[in-house]
């Protein structure tokens, strides 16, 4: 165990008090003098062209302040989602907005405006578009190809026979537009003793963050003040500047608290820009409150998969070859990536000796898709366990052992280029989980009790969990306070605060003397990574480390200048700098900060390094002269994929008469390097577990193929897990071995925490049903009942976005 002062210790993040008292402010809680309320008119058609907008009924409407249409806004290049459109590509796409003195007037106006739309062909299932003669979701094409060689729309069609073969479970023979591979696939299958082949569906579903993405904006002297709901903080600025058509210095983002994002609020998004443009037009503050139904429409969703996989296993269970083909359901605006990420996840979690990925990202007229907690990694996490367990049965190997045989370790090479990882301890995680769960004991116990049957399963999750190159900023003021400036967004993980513990560790200071600044551009925040992709803990621990190291260097230099000797003669402790060998010769941090102000230059931020981002430069300029400034760009060594890993062990009791199951036991183990914030880690592991439970059996898009209508726009229709869908206790643990490329060893965990859960549950359901593989999420109670009764399912093979 380490002997850190802050790392690995619980603390109370400063925003928790506001959350339990109601004082925490979210975007919708801000008001401005003269503020008006906007509402949007959304498309009732899945795909169409606006031919006429008739506003005559509201021309004289009392209280109506203005109308905004797509013609008032700069054009947006497809497939990027526009703020407003004249060619809607999904039901719920905003076409126009009105602003009024209150929401009732705004809604009345929306109900009176007549929008004439010419219908266009639409598709709500990728295979319906991919088949020859099928409709294209956009006039530009039905596939969006994103590649190094060039990105753009294409029209790709398969013959009806190719579609039928795919539906029948055979290897797809239609055109793939993305492909990568490594190793000798043919040899891998030739070497295999057992080969498992399955087709599968993972249905997309809505993010459904608790907070609808309200935003409020106004302009002052050419600068836009935007109160929005954002996962990231500083990272939003360039995108917002682009969205608003201004320079980065003219965007102030206030996002003190964000009511969940899960990938749907990583960067600037259209509904954040809309009130800003409306405010510009009206010259008064505009708040756009998004309703729950609209949040379903514009709030993003997970990409769906229709796929096929073939996996070869050697006699000892080692994966010799994996061949993966995925048709992605992109919705109308996404640009793909989940499919290839799924392939990348297979390459590390099961470490095949050879592998090929092929994919076709197909556009549909369903809600826009985007990154959702483990985008790609967690869809394939749901598919793989039953395949591993089927192979284990055929090879007579314990499901735990077949996972350990293929477990990622420090020498594992990953993805297309078979590059290195920074650290990986999957085997250790599996062993720890098996011990806590009593895997062997549970395996040997009786499984059947009347109509109830026990199933147990093991799941594994992965997401790359770190990047580099961002900036850190700390400040010590003459009152002795240590200011930790965090450009990290506050999306509910508390990582905005926990990463600053790295700076406190370096500065060897009392946490009670630290002040975290975050959530508002005007709080002078450095350029920071996006709060997504599980990157924050690794990435921003590094930035806080380098900034604090810069501060310590300056503290030593100031001590040498003031007290004599060289900087190397000094060290820091207990918020003092002291002469090594003569601790009585010392200065307090407060005195050092005062000297920094007097000395100026780099010590007080009047000058700063050339390589920091312009966002950080402005932050430093705003703080210059107020104390000692530590600021630096993270140029520490970073090579290889930073794997965040997690495993879960689940025991369910499945009722064969209802098709429902209860989760009797859940153990989740994190492999996220050094544990930085134990309570926060447990919260992420448990929250991820709940997300996996939703994906496994509850959540899915449902679209009427005849009219393109969504059937589930509310929370419960979407199947968001409740208290009663989830076990009241979830057990967690952590491997807690440091990653060598993180100053204190931390890696991220948010996404693997979910992947292991959905994986363990699909495995447990299969286990309860004698190894039956549904190869589909969600696995509903109806599906289980149909299987038990020996009857057909209600959908045709590979059909998606349906019940």
């Amino acid at each position, binding site marked *: 165990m380490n002997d850190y002062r802050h790392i690995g210790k619980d603390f109370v993040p400063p925003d*928790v008090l506001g959350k339990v008292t109601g004082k925490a402010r979210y975007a919708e809680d801000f008001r401005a003098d003269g503020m008006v309320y906007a509402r949007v008119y959304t498309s009732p058609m899945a795909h169409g062209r606006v031919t006429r907008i008739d506003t005559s009924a509201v021309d004289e409407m009392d209280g109506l302040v203005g109308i905004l249409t797509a013609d008032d806004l700069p054009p947006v290049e497809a497939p990027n989602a526009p703020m407003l459109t004249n060619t809607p590509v999904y039901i719920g796409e905003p076409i126009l907005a009105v602003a009024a003195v209150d929401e009732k007037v705004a809604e009345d106006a929306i109900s009176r405006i007549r929008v004439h739309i010419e219908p266009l062909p639409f598709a709500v299932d990728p295979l319906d578009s991919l088949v020859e003669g099928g409709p294209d979701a956009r006039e530009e094409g039905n596939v969006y190809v994103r590649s190094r060689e060039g990105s753009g729309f294409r029209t790709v069609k398969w013959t009806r026979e190719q579609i039928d073969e795919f539906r029948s479970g055979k290897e797809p023979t239609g055109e793939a537009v993305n492909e990568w591979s490594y190793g000798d696939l043919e040899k891998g299958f030739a070497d295999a003793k057992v080969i498992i082949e399955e087709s599968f569906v993972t249905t997309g579903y809505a993010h459904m963050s608790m907070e609808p993405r309200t935003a409020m904006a106004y302009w002052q002297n050419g600068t836009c003040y935007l109160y929005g709901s954002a996962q990231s903080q500083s990272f939003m600025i360039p995108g917002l500047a682009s969205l608003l058509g201004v320079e980065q210095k003219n965007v102030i983002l206030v996002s003190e608290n964000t009511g969940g994002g899960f990938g749907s609020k990583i960067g600037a998004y259209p509904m954040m820009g809309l009130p800003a443009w409306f405010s510009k037009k009206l010259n008064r503050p505009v708040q756009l409150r998004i309703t729950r139904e609209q949040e379903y429409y514009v709030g993003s969703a997970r990409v769906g998969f229709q796929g096929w996989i073939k996996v070869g296993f050697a006699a000892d269970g080692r994966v010799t070859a994996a061949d993966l083909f995925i048709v992605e359901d992109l919705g109308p605006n996404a640009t793909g990536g989940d499919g290839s990420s799924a392939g990348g996840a297979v390459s590390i979690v099961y470490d095949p000796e050879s592998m090929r990925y092929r994919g076709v990202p197909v556009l549909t007229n369903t809600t826009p898709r985007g990154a959702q907690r483990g985008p790609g990694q967690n869809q394939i996490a749901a598919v793989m366990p039953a395949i591993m367990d089927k192979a284990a049965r055929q090879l007579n190997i314990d499901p735990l052992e077949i996972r350990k045989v293929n477990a990622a370790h420090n020498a594992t090479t990953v993805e297309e280029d078979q590059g290195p990882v920074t650290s990986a301890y999957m085997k250790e995680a599996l062993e720890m989980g098996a011990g806590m769960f009593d895997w062997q004991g549970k395996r040997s116990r009786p499984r059947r009790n009347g109509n109830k049957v026990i199933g147990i399963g093991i799941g594994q999750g992965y997401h790359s969990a770190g990047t580099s190159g961002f900036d850190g900023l700390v400040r010590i003021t003459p009152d002795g306070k240590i200011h930790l400036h965090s450009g990290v967004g506050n999306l509910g993980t508390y990582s905005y605060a926990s990463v600053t513990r790295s700076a406190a560790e370096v500065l060897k200071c009392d946490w009670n003397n630290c002040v975290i600044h975050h959530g508002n551009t005007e709080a002078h925040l450095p350029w920071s990574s996006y709060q997504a992709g599980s990157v924050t803990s690794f990435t921003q621990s590094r930035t806080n480390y380098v900034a604090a190291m810069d501060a310590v260097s300056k503290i030593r230099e100031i001590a040498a200048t003031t007290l004599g000797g060289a900087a190397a003669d000094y060290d820091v402790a207990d918020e003092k700098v002291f002469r090594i060998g003569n601790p009585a010769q010392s200065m307090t941090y407060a005195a050092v900060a005062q000297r920094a102000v007097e000395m100026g230059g780099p010590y007080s931020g009047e000058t700063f390094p050339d390589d920091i981002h312009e966002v950080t430069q402005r932050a430093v300029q705003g703080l210059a002269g107020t104390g000692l400034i530590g600021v630096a760009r993270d140029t520490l060594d970073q090579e290889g994929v930073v794997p965040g890993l997690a495993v879960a062990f689940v025991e369910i009791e499945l009722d064969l008469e209802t098709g429902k199951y209860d989760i009797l036991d859940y153990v989740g183990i994190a492999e996220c390097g050094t544990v930085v914030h134990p309570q926060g880690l447990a919260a992420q592991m448990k929250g991820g577990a709940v997300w996996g439970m939703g994906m496994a059996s509850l959540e899915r898009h449902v679209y009427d193929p005849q009219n393109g209508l969504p059937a589930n726009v509310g929370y419960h229709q979407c199947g968001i897990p409740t208290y009663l869908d989830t076990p009241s206790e979830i057990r967690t643990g952590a491997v807690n071995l440091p990653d060598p490329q993180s100053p204190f060893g931390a890696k991220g965990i948010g996404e693997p925490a979910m992947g292991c859960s959905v994986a363990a549950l699909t495995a447990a359901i299969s286990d309860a049903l004698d190894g039956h593989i549904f190869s589909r999420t969600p696995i509903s109670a109806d599906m289980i009942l149909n299987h038990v009764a020996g009857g057909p399912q209600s959908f045709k093979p590979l059909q998606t976005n349906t019940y």
Partner: protein
Amino acid sequence: MKAVIASSVAAASYGGLRLAHAQDRTGAVERLISLNVNGRTRRVDVLPQETLAHTLRYKLGLTGTKIGCNRGECGACTLLIADVPHYSCSTLTHSVKGRNVLTVEGLQTADGRLHPVQQAFIDELAPQCGFCTPGQVMSAVALLKVNPSPTREQARQALSGNLCRCGAYDHYLNGVMRAAGTRS
């Protein structure tokens, strides 16, 4: 009467001018009513169809009560009316005249002391994004008023009308049990 409404409007919300004007169409319903919120009497101009969540957030400045769905699904707007938990998005403001309304802002004592549920939720790091937290707090407070020593299962049932998309249910239940004194 109109003068009274106008002064209330000035203090309450920008949209009030429009509301006062609307009275002409809404007939005989008395719109200027007294509410008892967190132990204080608040005079407020309320439309007949207005929900309590809207009145609190947009006219009384009590934004601790959150609107997650506005249709009785999520519980983010939960508050207590005469000690009984209600979804304020599905409660007409006019229906609570003369009854005690307790919102999350009313739990902390004047000297800053937190309600045991609030303190327990902090100790257990129960909130994640926090948007559902006020509703979770109020449901837990309501439970402990009628059942000071609930089992974990009773707490689970009592809070089951409050969704949490972050999936922090386990930590919230830990918080309830800690507040009840059965977890330390």
